[in-house]
């Protein structure tokens, strides 16, 4: 079964530092997403990415955040200057056609980010 792979599984960083979270989506998927989940709470949408550009972003996804697909396989989320409230589990997901055409999302196992 194809998987979405995320690295690292856990990252601890100091407040104000930059972090890059990495994801390798399933190879034939075209739509990519980042979600985050603060401990025990709901899964929150951050950003979607299609055709090498952001297709939609939430209010959470402010100027501190950016996404890239630098080499056609990796999909990264960068947080420029981390804050304590950025501590969360960050999930990458991908789908074949996107929600509008009725395909489910495959989530990666997540990166637990702890900002101290």
């Amino acid at each position, binding site marked *: 079964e194809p998987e979405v792979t995320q690295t690292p599984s856990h990252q601890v960083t100091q407040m104000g530092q930059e972090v890059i979270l990495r994801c390798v989506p399933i190879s034939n998927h075209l739509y990519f*997403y980042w979600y985050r989940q603060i401990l025990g709470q709901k899964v929150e*949408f951050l950003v979607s990415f299609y055709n090498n550009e952001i297709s*939609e972003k939430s209010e959470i996804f402010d100027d501190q955040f950016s996404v890239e697909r630098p080499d056609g396989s990796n999909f990264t989320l960068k947080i420029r200057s981390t804050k304590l409230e950025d501590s969360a589990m960050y999930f990458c997901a991908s789908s074949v056609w996107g929600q509008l055409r009725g395909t489910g999302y495959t989530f*990666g196992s997540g990166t637990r980010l702890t900002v101290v």
Partner: protein
Amino acid sequence: QQPVQSPQAVILREGEDAVINCSSSKALYSVHWYRQKHGEAPVFLMILLKGGEQKGHDKISASFNEKKQQSSLYLTASQLSYSGTYFCGTPGGSQGNLIFGKGTKLSVKP
């Protein structure tokens, strides 16, 4: 707009049934259901695309009432492996990216 799930939590004995509801204040044309076990990623269960559609695999099924803007997930003869948090996801924004409800925590006891 975030869909609303009910109940927030359910405790069952093995073999009992449960229903989890998901409703939206806006028109729906699809609903996703996912299950997340503790410390793991959400796993896709099913998607419903049409009003009146019902789907299922094993003893987990779902229905979608487009007019009422709601979907229900049915867990029949629950097993210990059904424990986890169930999320519904509905389209949000212009691109229809999934917005998830707050989840329903299901605990199945022996």
